[in-house]
């Protein structure tokens, strides 16, 4: 009997302790554990990033300087919508009053026609199709126009973006982008009067090396094949047409990003009429 009594009492004690502990455990869920040492939180550091899109043939006259200033601003969400200067949103920004691109004007028929310069449209129609005429084929297809439209970068807008050449702003890349090269190619194409009807025009491929001033004007032009220049009158005429294209005031200054002068101070042009014959 005595034994049983002792056992009963011990059991009660255990039960009480167990209940108390359970209660404490439950309470800890409700109240939470006390914090004795406040944690040292590291300061919030925003990680700057930008989304870059590589356009195929547009002259995204990069508005980077503005965007790069944004990362320091505290809230991360707002930068995002602004941070992507994808080609479509850009056109509104570059001033519309000077819409040089002719074909663009045609596609937007009613609005822009009055603004367009009166002189140019006709030659431009021929400009980017085959230049040797064949009545048989020319009847069928309409003039295939190259998408020479929105990317015409108003030279003013180009110069507006320019940062000082010696600024240490990180260049996006060490080389010109495809878009930038394309802008230059397009610009010179519009000033190049090709030697279309010349004999063996397909062989009149002219290579020219030019030195460019920091202000994007041409300093010096040199035709690479001097021997042929001196002996072949057809080649000389073709070479002179290339030189005239580069010297043409309509194509000066060259459409190049001022801040990357080191990249384009020497340019090697190849004028090749074969595709247009």
């Amino acid at each position: 009997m005595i034994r049983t009594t002792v056992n009963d009492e011990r059991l009660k004690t255990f039960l009480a302790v167990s209940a108390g502990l359970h209660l404490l455990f439950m309470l800890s869920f409700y109240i939470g554990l006390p914090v004795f040492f406040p944690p040292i939180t590291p300061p919030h550091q925003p990680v700057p990033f930008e989304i870059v899109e590589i356009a195929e043939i547009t002259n995204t006259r990069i508005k980077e300087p503005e965007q790069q200033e944004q990362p320091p601003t505290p809230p991360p969400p707002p930068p995002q919508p602004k941070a992507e200067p994808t080609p479509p949103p850009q056109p509104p920004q570059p001033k519309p009053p000077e819409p040089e691109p002719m074909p663009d004007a045609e596609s937007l028929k009613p609005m822009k026609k009055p603004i367009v310069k009166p002189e140019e449209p006709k030659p431009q129609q021929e400009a980017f199709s085959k230049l040797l005429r064949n009545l048989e084929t020319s009847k069928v297809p309409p003039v295939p126009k190259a998408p020479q439209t929105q990317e015409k970068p108003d030279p003013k807008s180009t110069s507006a973006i320019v940062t000082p050449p010696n600024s240490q702003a990180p260049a996006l890349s060490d080389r010109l982008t495809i878009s930038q090269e394309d802008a230059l190619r397009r610009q010179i194409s519009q000033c190049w009067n090709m030697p279309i009807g010349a004999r063996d025009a397909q062989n009149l491929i002219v290579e020219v090396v030019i030195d460019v001033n920091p202000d994007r004007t041409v300093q010096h032009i040199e035709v690479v094949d001097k021997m042929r220049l001196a002996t072949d009158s057809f080649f000389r005429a073709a070479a002179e047409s290339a030189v005239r294209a580069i010297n043409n005031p309509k194509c000066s200054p060259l459409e190049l990003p001022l801040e990357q002068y080191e990249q384009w101070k020497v340019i090697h042009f190849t004028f090749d009429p074969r595709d247009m014959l």
Partner: protein
Amino acid sequence: MKNHNPPRAALAVIVTIARQRLRVTALGLMLSLTALIAPFSPAQAEIKVDITRGVSEPIPVAIPAFYGRTADEAQFGRDIAQVITNDLVRSGLFSTIDPRAFVQDADALLTAPRFADWRVLNAQALIIGKVEAQGDGRLKIEFRLWDVFGEQQMAGRAYFSIPSNWRRVAHIVADAIYQRITGEDGYFDTRIVYIAETGIATNRMKRLAIMDQDGENNRILSDGRAMVLTPRFSPTMQQITYMAYYNNKPRVYLFNIDTGRQEVLGDFENMTFAPRFAPDGNRVVFSLTENGSSNVFTMDLRGRRVTRLTSGASISTAPCFSPDGQHITFESDRGGSQQIYVMRANGSDVQRITFGSGRYGTPVWSPRGDLIAFTKQLQGRFYIGVIRPDGSGERILTEAYHAEGPTWAPNGRVLMFFKDLPGSRGRSSHLYSIDLTGYNEREVQTPTDASDPAWSPLLP
């Protein structure tokens, strides 16, 4: 001392060799380092840009009146500048700037052109000149061609001639300018012979006529008693060959423009037609009918020896030499339909070069040698086109109700042909020129209806 000298010398040699080796090694090291670094060095950066598209626009040129001190000289100056302007513009390769926009007069230009001002007008070339009467009654006409963008003189020449010859000098100046800018010979100092047609359709008079390529100085060469057809210029002298019906007998004749002398080419039983000179001017290739067929022959003009080039029962005609004299192109129906063929000048190795639908005829080899012009008939319409001698690259330049008789300018850049246009008073024939590219088709003004043009070589 004597003993020490040889080892010292040897040592010196060794040291020298060692130094040289060191230099070479150092140099090699530097070169390889440079080679390694070079691709990454910004100083070596060079952008490569291919320009594969362009425009085809007339080159804007400014041609102020040539300067003349006296009133007469100034008048010549104005006339000469006008002829040059017309020549260059008609070629389609040049456009001129409105003289009202000119920023310097002829006098000021002679001292120094202000290129910046001419650039503003978008003038790419500037032509200035001067007319001066000489003590012996001749005129001195000089010109300078300036590259406005490059601010350099491209050409400059002076000519002396009698005043009545001013128009020809103007054409020669235009040729020099054309040649310097395009690289091709000019074609302005040339003439055209053609058939002047007058009278109603049932009694049409066809006479031989000649004019400058710009339509000036028209002259009728034959009296109209005989019908004259298919005149062709000799490539070497002022001589024409053509077919004429005298006493209803069609024969090939030779005619000297300077002397006015005409002679029949050989005395054949049958009809001879479609004559053309060989490039050396010493032979004529022509067709001769034989029992309902026709074949191609050549005749040596000195010995009058005749050589047969084709044979057979088909019709082979309209022969034309290549400019190097090695080949002849002609039309023939030997394959069933009328097509164009090319053979060696001795009649061997005949190759057909046209395979398109329609009938191809009157092939004419370009003086440049790179193309053959032809006439094509298809579904009731006529086409003038060009094709390469190997049969590739066929292009149609123009079409009309009736268009025929292509003839090349001596530089092989421009074609002339005639079109018959149906009108209220019957058909009317006119001459047209067109650029090889298929653009710049223009009518050549003639006092009467005109057909069968033939372009002369550059005048001697």
